């Protein structure tokens, strides 16, 4: 379980996050939603320790992560996997080398054992016969799937996804969403997905946090979103005409 308590983050004089608190439970797909520039990515990067927080506390289980030093944080980070917005695959490495990298770095497996694990993860995300390709030779959807394979290769306890559907067509987005959900259930991970894709919200949103201008405005499940009377949330979620109709029909 990850617990954030009253997180505040400023860049210079600008406060990007203001006393945000949230609890992310294991085995659940937790979603952070909000407009572009609302502070979602900053919140996610604070949670994983890529950005230092100005106020508040971040707990991983019983460990106060936000107060740990660099080397102690490194130990917890070995239990994290992250899917970045742009996939962040290493350009100079092949698909196989990318997925194998965490194993090379943190395990003493033989080459054959590593290869077996790499192939298992790649098959799990439906990437076959692409081991020797470089990231530049992959499509956007394939890059995301390879990045998921790399994120799960060490069987992490925590999975973070920063806008996993950005730049993908709706069908591929659903495939990625389903994959994240299935893997979360299989490995009983604490998964946190940062998104502004409403399809994702309705597909996999078990616990949703809505952030607006750096503050948490709403929290609930995907079914509660349809019935919410939070005006800011409704303006965001039901921004287009089709969604508004859906909301109205749900209300009647």
């Amino acid at each position: 379980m990850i617990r954030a308590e009253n997180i505040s983050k400023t860049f210079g004089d600008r406060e990007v996050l203001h006393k945000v608190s949230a609890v992310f439970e294991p085995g659940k797909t937790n979603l952070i939603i909000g407009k572009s520039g609302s502070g979602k990515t900053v919140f996610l990067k604070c949670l994983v320790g890529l950005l230092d927080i100005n106020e508040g506390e971040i707990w991983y289980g019983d460990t106060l992560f936000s107060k740990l030093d660099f080397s102690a944080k490194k130990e917890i980070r070995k239990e994290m996997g992250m899917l970045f917005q742009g996939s962040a695959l290493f350009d100079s490495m092949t698909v196989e080398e990318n997925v194998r990298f965490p194993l090379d770095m943190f395990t003493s497996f033989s080459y054959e054992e590593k290869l077996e694990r790499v192939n298992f993860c790649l098959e799990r995300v439906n990437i076959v016969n692409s081991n020797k390709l470089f990231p530049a030779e992959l499509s956007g959807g394939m890059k995301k799937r390879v990045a998921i394979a790399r994120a799960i290769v060490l069987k992490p306890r925590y999975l973070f996804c920063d806008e996993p559907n950005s730049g993908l067509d709706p069908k591929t987005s659903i495939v990625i969403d389903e994959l994240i959900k299935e893997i979360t259930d299989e490995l009983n991970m604490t998964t946190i997905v940062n998104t502004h894709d409403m399809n994702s919200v309705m597909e996999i949103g078990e616990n949703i946090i809505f952030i607006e201008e750096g503050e948490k405005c709403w929290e609930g499940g995907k079914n509660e979103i349809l019935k919410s009377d939070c005006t800011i949330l409704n303006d965001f979620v039901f921004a287009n005409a089709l969604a508004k109709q859906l909301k109205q029909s749900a209300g009647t």
Partner: protein
Amino acid sequence: MLKFLSSFGRYWLLLAKVFSKPEKHEVYYKQTTKELISLGLRSIGITIIISFFMGAVITLQTAYNTENPIYPTYLIGLGCRDSILLEFSSTIVALILAGKVGSSIASEIGTMKVTEQIDALELMGVNSASYLILPKIIASLVFNPFLTLISIIVGICGGWLAGTATGVISSQDFIYGIQYAFIPYYIVYGLIKTVFFAFIIASVSSFQGYYVEGGSLEVGRASTKAVVYSSVMILLFNVILTQLLLS
């Protein structure tokens, strides 16, 4: 001034992170081998070309400036040798490498930074500064002295070929000149300078790349800064080391 001090502080903090204990020696060893090829072996060609023509020009210019009969012709060979040993093979080659290798390092690390690849390394629990920069520094420190030695040999060969081909000096006189009053310490001096310059090129360029923020435009700027700052530092340390080692 404050900005300079801040950058200076960040440079040393980065170096402290770079020289912390590696996560896994085996991975670093492989990475260093890759960098030896990328930064070292792939610089041999440009080093040979520059050194050859540099030696040729030094010989011809020395010849045209010592046409007076009171100067023995073997001085042309001696002048070529000492210029190459003392200055050209270490400093000029280092300045060329600052352009070639420095910009490559800064743009590679800078691109990794803006595409979140460095964040990905950090998130895995890898010390990204050490993993990316230490192999580059080691590869440069190990290989650049060889490049200097290659440069010395090729430069003198270039001088000999230019001198004899144009008839400004005979082969015997040139060979006598390069052997005359030879001080072996000059080679040591050149190699010591090379080691310092290699460290400057790799570390300053990595620093510029590692702290890039923004997009491709900033990566380009970092690449330019890497070349400019490395070159200035090389020239500054050239003066300091010359005073320390030759005085």
